[in-house]
C-alpha cells in the first residue's frame, strides 16, 4: 500500500513539475513573439549532395537573417515520426513556421497538424496544397523541370548514341514531369534522342541506383541524369563508366570532373527568405508559391568539362527562352500509349496546372510507370 502512495506522490510531483515547465515554455513563447523560429524537417541527411542539401543550404542562408532562429531535424521518415518531430518543434522550440521538405509529409501529417495548431504556419515542398486544405498550410515549389529541360538541351548535343538514361525514384507527378521535360529538351536540339528511364522505387537506395546506372550504360546510354534524393551514386557511377552526366537537386560538379555537363538545381533560399521577410512584416504567407527561372526558384549548375561549346550556347539560349516564358510542352506530343497530349501547334504554359498531376510518360521515353 505504501508503495502505491509513493508512486502516486511521485506522479503528482512530476505532473506538477510538468505543468510548471509547460507554462514557462508558453511564457517564453509569448516573450519571443517578435522573433521568428523556423523548423525544418528533412527526410535524409543534410549533406546528401541532393534534395536535402539543397534545402539545408537555403536554411543556412536563412540563419543570417536577423531575428530568425532555425531548428532542423534530419533523417525523419515519412511516417508518424514526421508529425512527432514537427510537434516537438512547435511545443519545445516555439517554432511558428514549419518547412516540411519531403513529399510524403503532407498527407496526413502536415494537414493534421495544421488543423491542430492554427497559429503555426506550415509550408510543404511539393505542389500539393489545394483549396479546402487548412489556410495555415501551403505549398512551395521550384519547377525543376525547367532546369531539366535546359540540361537536356545540352545533353541532346552531347550524346552520340542518342540514348539518354534517367534513374528515377518513384513515378510521382514531379518526377514524371522532369522526365518528360528532359526528353523535350533533348528532342528540341536532337530529334532522334530517346530517354530510357529506370525506376528504383525508393528515394534513396544506393546499391540499386548504382545497378540502374550500370544497366543504363550497358543498354547504350551515354548521358545519365537522375531524380533521386542523393544523386551522388549515379553521378559517380556515370563518371567511372566514362559517360557524361547531368546533375539534380544540388551541385554534383565536383563528383564528375570529366563528364559533368550541367545540372538542375533548386534555389530554395529565394523562397525561404521571401517567407521570412513576409512574416517579419506581418504579411500573410501565400498558400501556393511556385516558379522557375523567371522568379529565380531554380538554376543550372555551372557547366562542367563534359559540356561542349555548342551545348553551352544552346543551353544558354534555351534558358533565356524559358525565362522569357516560351513554352516547353509544344505539340505534337503523344503519351506513351499513343493518345495525343498536345496537337501540332498547341502548347502548355510552363505553369499549366494539369502538369502538376502528370501521370504519364510521353512518346520517346522508354520505361513504364507501373
Amino acid at each position: 500500500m505504501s508503495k502505491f502512495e509513493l508512486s502516486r506522490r511521485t506522479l503528482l510531483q512530476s505532473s506538477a513539475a510538468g505543468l510548471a515547465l509547460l507554462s514557462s515554455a508558453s511564457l517564453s513563447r509569448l516573450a519571443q513573439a517578435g522573433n521568428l523560429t523556423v523548423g525544418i524537417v528533412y527526410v535524409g541527411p543534410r549533406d546528401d549532395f541532393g534534395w536535402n542539401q539543397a534545402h539545408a543550404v537555403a536554411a543556412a542562408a536563412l540563419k543570417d537573417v536577423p531575428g530568425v532562429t532555425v531548428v532542423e531535424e534530419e533523417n525523419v521518415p515519412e511516417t508518424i515520426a514526421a508529425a512527432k518531430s514537427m510537434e516537438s518543434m512547435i511545443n519545445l522550440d516555439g517554432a511558428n513556421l514549419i518547412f516540411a521538405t519531403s513529399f510524403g509529409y503532407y498527407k496526413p501529417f502536415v494537414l493534421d497538424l495544421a488543423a491542430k495548431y492554427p497559429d503555426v504556419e506550415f509550408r510543404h515542398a511539393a505542389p500539393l496544397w489545394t483549396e479546402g486544405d487548412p489556410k495555415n498550410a501551403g505549398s512551395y515549389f521550384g519547377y525543376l523541370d525547367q532546369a531539366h529541360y535546359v540540361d537536356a538541351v545540352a545533353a541532346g548535343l552531347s550524346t552520340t548514341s542518342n540514348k539518354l538514361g534517367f534513374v528515377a525514384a518513384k513515378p510521382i507527378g514531379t518526377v514524371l514531369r522532369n522526365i518528360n521535360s528532359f526528353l523535350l529538351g533533348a528532342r528540341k536540339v536532337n530529334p532522334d534522342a530517346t530517354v530510357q528511364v529506370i525506376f528504383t522505387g525508393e528515394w534513396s537506395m544506393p546499391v540499386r541506383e548504382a545497378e540502374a546506372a550500370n544497366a543504363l550504360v550497358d543498354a547504350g546510354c551515354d548521358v545519365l541524369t537522375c531524380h533521386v534524393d542523393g544523386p551522388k551514386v549515379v553521378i559517380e557511377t556515370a563518371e567511372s563508366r566514362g559517360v557524361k552526366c547531368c546533375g539534380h537537386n544540388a551541385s554534383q560538379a565536383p563528383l564528375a570532373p570529366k563528364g559533368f555537363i550541367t545540372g538542375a538545381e533548386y534555389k530554395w533560399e529565394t523562397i525561404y527568405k521571401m517567407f521570412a521577410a513576409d512574416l517579419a512584416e506581418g504579411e500573410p504567407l501565400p498558400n501556393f508559391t511556385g516558379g522557375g527561372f523567371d522568379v529565380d526558384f531554380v538554376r543550372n549548375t555551372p557547366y562542367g568539362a563534359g559540356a561542349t561549346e555548342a551545348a553551352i550556347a544552346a543551353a544558354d539560349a534555351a534558358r533565356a527562352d524559358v525565362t522569357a516564358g516560351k513554352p516547353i510542352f509544344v505539340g505534337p506530343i503523344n503519351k506513351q500509349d499513343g493518345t495525343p497530349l498536345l496537337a501540332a501547334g498547341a502548347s502548355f504554359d510552363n505553369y499549366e496546372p494539369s502538369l502538376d498531376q502528370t501521370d504519364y510518360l510521353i512518346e520517346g521515353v522508354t520505361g513504364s510507370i507501373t
Partner: protein
Amino acid sequence: MGDDPGLMTVLLAMFAGAIRVSTPFLFVSLGEMLTEKSGRINLGLEGTLVFGAMSGYAISYHTGSPWLGVLVAGLCGSLFGALHGYLCKLPKVNDIAIGIAMMLFGTGLAFFFGKPYIQPSAPRLPSISFGTWSDHPAVRQALEINPLFLLGIALAIFLWWALKNTRYGLIIRTTGDSAPAALALGIHVDRVRLLSTMAGGFFAGIGGSFLSLYYPGSWTEGLSSGQGLMAVALVIFARWNPIYCFWAALLFGAAGALGPALQSIGISRGYHFFNAAPYILTLLIMIASTSPRRSLKGAPGELSITK
C-alpha cells in the same frame, strides 16, 4: 552476342550484378556462419556492416589508403563482435536480443561519426580487369572484379577446409554442437565463442567497407539496405556451409540486379516486384527450408533458435 540481345543483356547484367553486389553478402554470411558454428547468433552484423562502411571510408579519406580502410573496418567489426561476445557470456543474456541492440547501436554510432564523411570523396579500392580479351564493353565491365571478391572466395574455401580438417575447426564445431561436451574436453566455451564472434565481426566489417569503398562506393546513411540482415537468412539457406554461402551470396546479388536489368531492356512493368526479388527470395527460402517437424540439417545444436 546470340540471337536474343535482350535476354543476353539481362543474363550478363545478372552475372555482373552477382559479382558486384554479392561481396558484402558473402563476407557477412561467412562471418555469421562462423559465429553460429560456435553456437551463437549475432544479429548485430547489420550494424557492424554499416559501421565498417563508415570507418573504412573515413580511414581511406584520412590516410589515402583504401586498403588500410578495409583493415580498420575489419578491426572495428571485431570490436563490435567482442562486445557482443562479452555481453552474451553473462548469465541469462539472450544473444538475439543483444544482437538487435548491437544492430541499432552500430548503425547509430556510424551515423553519428559518419556525418563529416558524407560530403568528401575518399580514394576507392581498385579493381582487376579480367575482361581485356573481350571487345564487348558490357562484358569488360562485368569482369572488372574487385580483389575483395576474390578474397571472399578464398576465405570461403579456407573456412570450409579449416572447419572440416583442423583442430580449431573441430573445437568450434564441438562448442557449437554441444557445450557440455566441449566443457568435458577442456575447451573454454565462452572464449571460443568470443573469438568466433570477433572473427565474424571482422568479416562483416570488411563487407561494409566494400559497400563504401567499391560498390556503390560512397558513404551515405542509406548505404545498406538490409544486406546484413539478409545475410543472416542466407546462412540458414546455405546450411552453415561456407561454400554454399558463396553460391547463396551470388544468387542474392543476381536477384538484386534483376529489377534494373529488366527495366533496361524495356521489361518495366511490375518493377516493384522485381526490385523486391531478393526479399521475396529470402522469404521463400525460409519457408522452403524450415519445417516444424525436424531441425535443420547442419544446424549447430547449441543455437538458441534450434535448441
